[in-house]
Every structure is written in structure tokens, then in C-alpha cells.
């Protein structure tokens, strides 16, 4: 699964994109966010403000209950501040 990070999530995790293969128990966005801190301290630190995060699946906003599939493009980012 391709995953992308933006803004302070990108700088805290230290990369803008990566391929990950979560365990089979990870079925939804929420499961993914539960599992990610196990990847390292930078991940757990980035996910501390988890309630603030926005999630997009295949470039559309998604809820925590959204089911993710292996070939999805998943993006994690803070609330947007453009305009």
C-alpha cells in the first residue's frame, strides 16, 4: 500500500512517501492508525495528535471507518491551510 505524508507529518516521520504492508488485522483507516506507531518513535510522535489528522484514500477524504485495500493510495496530513 502506498502511503503519503504531508506538512509536519512528513517532517516528523522523515519521509514523504513509502510502501507499507500492514498485518492482515488492519482493515480500516482507524486500524492503520492504531498499528502505525509500532513502526518507530517518529511514527508514534507524529500520530500523537491523531484526532487532528485528515485521511485521504485515493485522493478523496475518508472517515476512520473507511476500509483500506492493498492497492489504495493512503495520505495522512494535518488540516489544510491554503488559500
Amino acid at each position: 500500500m502506498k502511503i503519503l505524508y504531508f506538512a509536519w507529518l512528513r517532517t516528523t516521520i522523515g519521509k514523504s512517501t513509502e510502501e507499507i504492508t500492514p498485518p492482515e488485522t488492519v482493515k480500516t483507516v482507524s486500524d492503520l492508525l492504531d498499528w502505525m506507531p509500532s513502526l518507530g518513535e517518529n511514527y508514534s510522535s507524529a500520530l500523537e495528535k491523531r484526532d487532528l489528522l485528515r485521511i485521504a484514500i485515493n485522493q478523496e477524504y475518508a472517515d476512520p471507518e473507511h476500509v483500506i485495500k492493498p492497492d489504495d493510495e493512503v495520505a495522512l496530513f494535518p488540516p489544510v491551510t491554503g488559500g
Partner: protein
Amino acid sequence: MIKVQEEDFDVGQEIKNLTQENHAIGGVASFLGLVRDIASNEEISAMTLEHYPGMTEKMLAEIEAEANRRWELDASLIIHRYGRMEPGEQIVLVITCSKHRKAAFESCEFLMDYLKTKAPFWKLEETSEGGKWVDARDSDDTAASRWIET
């Protein structure tokens, strides 16, 4: 029309491009966002706009389609820049053209409010203390929530 680009743009020329072939247009509302030199009482020397290529275009096109569904528009345009910009530089331009001014004004404000809360852009401000990611403002959510159809 949607343009996501690093280059600057020419407001007058963009308005001309939208209006010159259509003399049914009576009103053109526009909003231009500029880089400010002060934010939260700190001096800003520059700003970098990060975005999510692909999703940005998709979201802006969705927002524009929604405005055209809600109001009778003859033309509309959203230009949003990304990259590094200094105070005074142009960041965003929204133009809406309609037969009457009310539709032009309302749809222009709608586009800006939605863009502010939906389009995947993030501002990093450069101050004397280094780079700082800008926090989202509650007032932007409030502004966007006005447009929820009930």
C-alpha cells in the same frame, strides 16, 4: 477552470480571458489572496506552500463543479500557486462570472471558503526563528459551514 501552478499569474488577463467572448456576463467577482508580511504578530520573510499533486486538482475541480451546480455561472476560474513566495506575492485567485452580481459574489465567497478547508495545501512560514507550519483556523471551518445545504 482549475490551474495549480508554481508561476505567478496576471489577474487582469485572466478576467479578460473569461469574459471577452461572452457578452451575457454582467458581473465578475474575484478574490485575490496575497502573502502577508505579518502573521500572529510575527514578521514573515517568506512562505512555502506544499500541496498534494493530483488530489489538489481533484478537490478544486469538485469545489468548482459544486459552485456551478448551486449558482448559474457563465464562467469560473481557480488558480492556486505552490512553492516559495515572499510578502506581497499572489497566492490564489478565484473568479466567478454571471449575468447578475449576487450569483457572482456568493459563488466567489463559497469557492474561497471551501478551498480554505478542503484543498490540500499547507503553509510553512519563515520567521526569524525558522520555519513554522501554520495552524488551521477555526474561523475557516465556521465560514465553510455556512454553505451546508439543509
